């Protein structure tokens, strides 16, 4: 990673690094954009103010100062990788849904924030267990609203733990729903911020992504290991429990 020259800003250097990562950065407009990636839809907007980027690089470099000769160069490389990652990770289903990446001040510290086209609003009721009737109803409606915003013809079925979507259904037994989301929140305890918000965002993205990917319908079910998992409804002509497994080699 070369040093930034006298005439080159940190933003310029970052855009150059993104181009080396194979991204087409267009800086002719007021808000630079990165051209669509694969089948990822419209261009993503980059909102990276020079002063915030400088502060962010300082922050990242500080973590490497004790053991790197040129921590600032390491920081530039890491931030370029981070940004390329935001813009190209295919979310496991072949599509990147990031539409804007911004540097913002969060409690005085610069932070990279991504906006995706499948971001969902938090449910109105954030207190109490997920299977509390009022909380459950509010979260079911919030999920249905999120799916509507994603373009699905969606409704929560009153009095039922079901969301109907274009002839498909998402079945969420309240007791399993509570176990599932609480397990996710427990996992997200490793991060800063509110684990409930992290879990909710992940949940909304997962459900919308799977439905968009053609899942015939979704249910929560208990796996043999006791973990509650989201599983597909079987199609009429398919094996209800296909023995699929990710592996290092094709075929066994």
């Amino acid at each position: 990673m070369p040093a930034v020259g006298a005439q080159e800003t940190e933003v310029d250097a970052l855009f150059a690094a993104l181009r080396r990562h194979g991204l087409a950065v267009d800086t002719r407009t007021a808000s630079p954009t990165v051209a669509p990636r694969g089948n990822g839809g419209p261009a993503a907007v980059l909102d990276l103010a020079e002063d915030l980027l400088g502060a962010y690089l300082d922050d990242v470099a500080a973590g490497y100062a004790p053991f790197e000769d040129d921590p600032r160069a390491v920081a530039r490389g890491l931030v370029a990788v981070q940004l390329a990652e935001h813009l190209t990770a295919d979310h496991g289903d072949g599509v990147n849904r990031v539409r804007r990446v911004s540097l913002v001040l969060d409690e005085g510290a610069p932070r990279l924030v991504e906006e995706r086209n499948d971001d969902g609003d938090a449910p109105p009721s954030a207190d109490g267990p997920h299977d509390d009737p009022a909380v459950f109803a509010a979260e079911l409606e919030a999920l249905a609203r999120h799916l509507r915003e994603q373009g699905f013809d969606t409704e929560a079925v009153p009095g039922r733990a079901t969301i109907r979507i274009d002839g498909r259904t998402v079945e969420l037994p309240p007791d399993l729903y509570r176990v599932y989301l609480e397990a996710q929140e427990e996992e997200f305890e490793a991060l800063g911020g509110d684990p409930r918000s992290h879990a909710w965002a992940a949940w909304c993205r997962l459900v919308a992504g799977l439905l968009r990917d053609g899942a015939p319908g979704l249910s929560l079910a208990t796996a043999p290991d006791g973990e509650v998992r989201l599983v597909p409804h079987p199609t009429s002509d398919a094996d209800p429990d296909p023995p699929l497994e990710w592996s290092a080699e094709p075929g066994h």
Partner: protein
Amino acid sequence: MNARIARPERRAAELTVVLVIIGLALGVTAAPASAAPPWGACGRSTPEDKIVRQFPAGITLRCGGPIGSSDPRHGYRHILARHRTDFENMAFGTGTFQNWRDVADLSIETIANDPDVTVPVGGNQLCMSRVIFLNDRRTGQLVRQQIVRMFINATTRDVNTLHPHQRHC
């Protein structure tokens, strides 16, 4: 956290018991679905350098951080924050009950053992990528394949990030 992270080991044992019982009932033997080794636990204040798991070729997944950040930049916390849903998406519908950590673990292990591509990128990092495969265990049929990219620190060989991608490094 501990209970969840340790779950793959317990799952393997439970699944083995279930399959042995089924096997005895049917008069056949069956191999349990493979399960990833357990990952060390990372809680809210666990040190960034705590090892989650060591992989071949000196590659190490650590808790990462920064601690307390909702936007961690490296290690397990980064993968959890940014790519949990990506790997959960991949794990969805696998009848052998792999979960997101199983798929992420398999990806790191496979890339560490035998990467398809390894290239240096800026900031003393290496980008490594490899295809992994979704197979039907009964028929041996290849159902899907997916490239996964991993970025590691070239000196420490610590994992910075891991995510599915449409192209190799």
